[in-house]
Every structure is written in C-alpha cells, then in structure tokens.
C-alpha cells in the first residue's frame, strides 16, 4: 500500500514538473476543436448561453422572472456542465492517449492534467457567460460572491481525482463509457441543476440529500443565491474529495504501469 502511494506521488510530482507539456497540449486541444470557425473558443460561451437561455424560458414559471431563479439555473448549469464533461470524457482518456502512452515515458498524470486543464479552460468561457447572465438579470455583485471561491477551488481540486478514477474505470471496463454517459445524461434530472428543492418528499428529497453533486453545486451557488457561507455543502464536498483522492491515488499507484498493456 505504501509502495503504491509512493509510486502515485512520484508520478504526480513528475507530471507537475512537466506542467509546460500539459498546459501546451491542452491549449492546442482547445484550439484544434475550434480551428477554422469564425467565433473560435467563443462557441463555448454561445453554447452556454443557449442552454441556460433555453432552460430559463422553457421552465417559465412565476419564479422565472425572479433574478434569483435565473442565477440558480446559470450557476447550476455552470457547475453541472463542468462535472458532466469532466466525468464523461475521462472514461475514454487512456484509449485516446494510447499512442502517447505506448510511445513515450511521460507520467500517466500528465494526461490527467491535460484533460483537467482543457476542462478548466472550457469552464472559464462558461463562467464568463455566467457572470454576464447574473449581471444582465439584474443580480448585482456583492461581497457574498467571494464565498463561492472555496467551492470553486474544491471542484477544481477534485477534478484530477475524478479524471483518474473514471479513466481507470474506462480502461478496465470499456462498457462503462456508455453506461457513464447515459448516467450523466439522466443524472442532470436527479441533481438540483434547474429544479429547486423546497422540502418536498419522495424522489426529489433523496435526489437532493443523497446526491454528492448537489453539494458541489450548492457550495458555489448558495453564497450567490442565498447570500450565506455554504458550510455544510463545503464540508460534504471536502469529505467527498478526500475519499475520491484516496481512491485515485490507490488506482494510480497500483495500476499505472499496467495501463500500457490494457489499452
């Protein structure tokens, strides 16, 4: 166990030293995805606007004219899209990087950080859109917004662990790519991304309280929509991150040298 953890930390520290590699590759990835388009990466901003706008208009209720509902959906979508994309693309990470893994001696964590970086860059465009929506909907800025920073940092900190766990899952269990994809699509409806929980019983109660994604969302959203410090959400998210990182380190330590034979 100690040898496995030490191997994992060794892989991570080598990858951190090679930060210029994964930062450059992630920028190239984003550039390639939007090459020859007029708007370039701004398409990510447009996509975000289109989704949030659709949800706000489709779920038009008496709440929809309330700026706090628009903020609720905008922040919910921002965090959910980030987590959804991270998890969905992680499952096939090692297969996509097969030629690099079989042809170079780069630490495995370099690929994890390359994907993390890509997801963060994409989310930065969505975040710009989110801030714009909050301002346009008349939701003025205030100091409470700063309470969202710990939640955002925790989410970014959890990202490499999410990537490692789901990338190993995809390597050992190839069907998981489709299972996870479907679960994430359905998962959006079981997570309070656009629906508001106000003490209802039944499925919504369990979907709210027993869904870890709820706490990821609330740790960022609560300070802005409710103006409070999200102590409970941050605590649950923090414990979840610790567990996720423990699993990720174990997987990385035990199986990183075997991945080359698996893909």
């Amino acid at each position: 166990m100690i040898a496995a953890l030490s191997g994992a930390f060794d892989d991570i520290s080598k990858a951190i030293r090679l930060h210029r590699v994964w930062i450059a590759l992630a920028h190239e990835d984003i550039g390639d995805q939007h090459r020859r388009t007029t708007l370039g990466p701004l398409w990510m901003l447009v996509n975000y606007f289109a989704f949030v706008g659709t949800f706000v208009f489709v779920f038009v209720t008496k709440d929809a004219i309330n700026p706090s509902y628009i903020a609720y959906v905008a922040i919910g979508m921002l965090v959910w899209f980030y987590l959804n994309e991270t998890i969905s693309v992680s499952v096939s990470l090692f297969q996509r990087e097969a030629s690099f893994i079989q042809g170079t001696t780069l630490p495995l964590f370099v690929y994890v950080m390359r994907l993390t970086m890509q997801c963060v860059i994409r989310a930065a465009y969505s975040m710009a859109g989110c801030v714009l929506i909050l301002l346009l909907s008349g939701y003025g800025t205030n100091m409470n917004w700063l309470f969202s920073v710990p939640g955002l940092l925790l989410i970014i900190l959890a990202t490499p662990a999410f990537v490692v766990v789901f990338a190993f899952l995809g390597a050992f269990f190839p069907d998981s790519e489709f299972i996870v994809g479907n679960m994430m699509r359905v998962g959006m409806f079981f997570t309070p991304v656009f629906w508001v929980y106000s003490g209802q019983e039944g499925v919504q109660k369990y979907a709210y309280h027993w869904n870890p994604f709820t706490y990821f969302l609330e740790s960022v959203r609560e300070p802005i929509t409710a103006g409070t410090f999200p102590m409970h959400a941050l605590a649950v998210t923090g414990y979840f991150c610790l567990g996720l990182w423990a699993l990720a380190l174990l997987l990385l330590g035990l199986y990183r040298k075997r991945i080359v034979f698996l893909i």
Partner: protein
Amino acid sequence: MTAIKLNNVSLVYRLFEKLTLSAPGRRRSALGGNIASSGTKQVVQALDDVSFELKAGDRLGLVGPNGSGKTTLLKVLYGIYQPSAGTISIAGKVDALFNISIGFRPEATGRRNIVLRGLISGWTAAEIEEKMEEIIDFSELGDFIDLPFKAYSQGMAARLAFAAATALEPEILLMDEWIGAGDASFQEKAKRRMDELAEKAGIIVLASHDDTLIQRVCTKRMVLKNGRVESLT
C-alpha cells in the same frame, strides 16, 4: 560513460480480461505464439531471458519476424515496459523514435510541432529556441515549416521527426523501422547524423526488417525469435 547492460531480462504480462458485458467466449484471445495459459490467466511471454551489453559507439540492429520482440525490447530499453525479471542498467540520456506522428499535431505548423515535441522530450524553452533553426535546416522543409503538419508527405514528416529527435544529440537513440522513410538523399543525411551520434560516444539501437539498412547503419546484429535472442553478431 554511455552503456546498456541487460541481464536475463524477461517480460511476461498478463492479458487482462476486461470487465465486459460481451459473451464469455468472446472475451479472450486464442492461445498460440507467445500467448500461453497460466492457471486461469492468459499471459504473453514477450521477452525471454535476454542478455546483452552495448558500449559507447555501438550501433545494434534488431532483426526478426513480426512478433519476435524487437519493438518490445526497444520499449523496455526506453522504460515504457518494466521487465518482469532480470536487470537493466542504462547509463546515458535516451531518446526514441517509435512512431513518426507521436507528439505531432496535424493542425499545428511544423514550427509549433517542434516546440511541442521538445516539451514532450523534456527540453527547456532555451534548448527549443536554440535548436529550432537547426532542426528546420536539417529537415529541409523550407517554407513548409509554417504550414500545418497534415500537409506534409510521409517523407517530410519523417524528416521533421528525425531532425527533432536527434537535435539534442541523445546519448542513446532507439529507433523502430521507419527510418527507411524519406528519399535516398535524406537517408544518406540521416545515416551521417547517426554516424556522428555514434562517434560522439553514443549508442544506437535500430529495429528493422530491412537487412540492407541494418548492414548499412549498424555495427552489431541481434536476431530475435519468440522473444529470445537467437544470435548476436
């Protein structure tokens, strides 16, 4: 002092039975060749008791039929595969050319690809800057260097890959087959550079099916069969 020493190196790896929803009969490959059964598991004996020693200036050619272990041995030397038995001792900075396209992005220009290839090989920004023009000159790409990599012919891609891989003068260079790409004049130029590398106390290990290439470039020849060394001359 640049040197490679392998003592009784074997590589046996288990064919992982992936968790899958497919029918049990379709999960495993057929036995045969280097694939054997060990209890309930399938294992591949990729290298079997390989021992040899190379010193500065040696150029080893690996020959053998497909599946004999040439590429596997190169990957063990590079550190991609960990041997399951035996010891390896390598003294010197190693670089490898296994696949022309590794580290090259089709949409990026040749110039940008040199930067990326350098980063992947662990070069510093100063080293990349310093070697840029030399790589462009050696690859003879001229104005093509500012066009996307996808516009290059296979020969042009090979020239760029070779120029980048040898620019920092690795002490040990591992190459798999493809050096035969490119026209005759470039091959001659590549051979001269390999001669220079070897003369600067380097070691070259080249795997190829082309006996003429091996004879032209290498000073030693190792024949591999089913992962074992059949002869070393």
